[in-house]
């Protein structure tokens, strides 16, 4: 699958934070930042600060999850009480439960766990500070943590959202844009094949706008994918 972004998809207009319409926020990823976890990653994009850690493959102590032919994953997305403007009560709410589920589903197609039947891989995503787009950033960080843990994968998974703000299709919505905008389309892909493993859409878009948003999100994912690779490389070549 090849997408060609032509100039008429995005105009040269500037956004409130000074970014171009197709520009992602400043991004930083670091791999292997925790001592105890088998794999870990820290990611900052815009005001988001996210930690991801992986344990496993380990013995599956939850019998109902065990599968005799392959390893299984368990995923938890969790927000720190101080990660948002109004303190969030600790523990899972409906939103974080949904995000945990779609994150697991976004990542699962990338994993090659057949070599580890009856085992379990735990993926934990902790939002230390949230500033729009945490689910995509969480997926991006989790994939780095999985690679860092030495888990076999078909490809990395990388997430990025596009959306509609002030009538324009823009890439990587900030919190403010997400709140004030008309639509938000979070996407995750496996960059080598371009296969899409996460897709949500929240808000109103025309068919043409959705097409643009999807193409733009995929283009954003590809940029972020390069930063993922660098992060893993820096762990060993710094």
């Amino acid at each position: 699958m090849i997408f060609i972004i032509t100039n008429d998809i995005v105009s040269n207009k500037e956004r409130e934070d000074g970014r171009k319409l197709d520009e992602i926020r400043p991004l930083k990823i670091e791999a292997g930042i925790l001592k105890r976890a088998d794999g870990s990653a820290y990611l900052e994009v815009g005001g988001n600060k996210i930690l991801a850690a992986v344990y496993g493959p380990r013995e599956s102590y939850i019998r109902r999850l065990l599968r005799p032919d392959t390893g299984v994953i368990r995923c938890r997305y969790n927000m720190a009480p101080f990660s948002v403007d109004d303190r969030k009560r600790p523990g899972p709410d409906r939103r974080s439960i949904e995000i945990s589920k779609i994150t697991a589903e976004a990542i699962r197609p990338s994993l090659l766990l057949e070599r580890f039947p009856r085992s379990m891989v735990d993926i934990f995503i902790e939002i230390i500070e949230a500033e729009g787009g945490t689910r995509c950033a969480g997926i991006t960080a989790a994939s780095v943590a999985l690679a860092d843990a030495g888990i076999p994968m078909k490809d990395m998974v990388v997430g990025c959202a596009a959306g509609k703000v002030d009538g324009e299709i823009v890439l990587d919505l900030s919190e403010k844009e997400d709140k004030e905008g008309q639509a938000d389309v979070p996407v995750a892909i496996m960059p080598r094949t371009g296969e899409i493993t996460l897709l949500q859409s929240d808000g109103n878009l025309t068919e043409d706008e959705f097409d643009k948003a999807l193409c733009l999100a995929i283009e954003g994912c590809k940029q972020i994918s390069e930063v993922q690779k660098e992060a893993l490389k820096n762990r060993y070549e710094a």
Partner: protein
Amino acid sequence: MIHVEDKKFVVPGEILAEDDYYPGRGTFKEGDMICSSLMGLVSLRNNKISVIPLKSKYIPKKGDVVIGEIEDIRFSMWGVNINSPYSGILPASEVFGREKKELSRVFKIGDVLFLRVVDVDEVKKVKLGLKGRGMGKFKNGILVDITPTKVPRLIGKKGSMINMIKDKTRCKIVVGQNGLVWVKGDVDMEQITKNVINLIEAEAHTSGLTNRIRDKLFLLIDGELPKDREESHESKFGENNSKNHLNNDPDFDNSFEANEEELEKPKLENFKGIF
């Protein structure tokens, strides 16, 4: 067509080669393409392309030697933690033969043993045994854990790395293929050995490691660099499959085998009077 060089760092999903190459470990084939499934370093041997992982969990294989810790005592077997997604069992019959003995009198929870993987069945039940030279329970010493993929690097070509450490620290060292390493010697030397093993793990993917480790050992122990800094033969990370060495290379055996006097083998005659 090849897209990468030998020893290049790759991440999961990277395209390594097309057509005329064969997929080795750490890779998979998709159409005509061979892709990496791991974060690791490319290993090119003739037309076979593999990726040597920088980190991994130990997956037990029949014939491996491992270091394990007794974590459970059941009716006729011990449960053994072997630092793997699959825990091991040591059947009482492997230790006593047909005699009935009280298990907890032989090995207790927390005891650390050098064991052989006797069998791994379809449901990943890992049967362990103690038959073989040097197998049994460790007394004293310390444990160091490293990621199992770096075991070959710790051993070095024909045991060059491990023997160098043993010579300089006068420690006894036993390496399990599951990444656990037992070290016993003078208390200070045990800690130096541990630090050096951790350093090897951290820098296993770099070249010139044997010399650097040699310098480090001399600095830590003598306070100065070796006078005769000859170029020692450097082995490459990932080049050695430790299992092959274990089975085929006579020089290698002592890297895995402990001196027998250090290991407390279950002495059956001692238990006869118990019941």
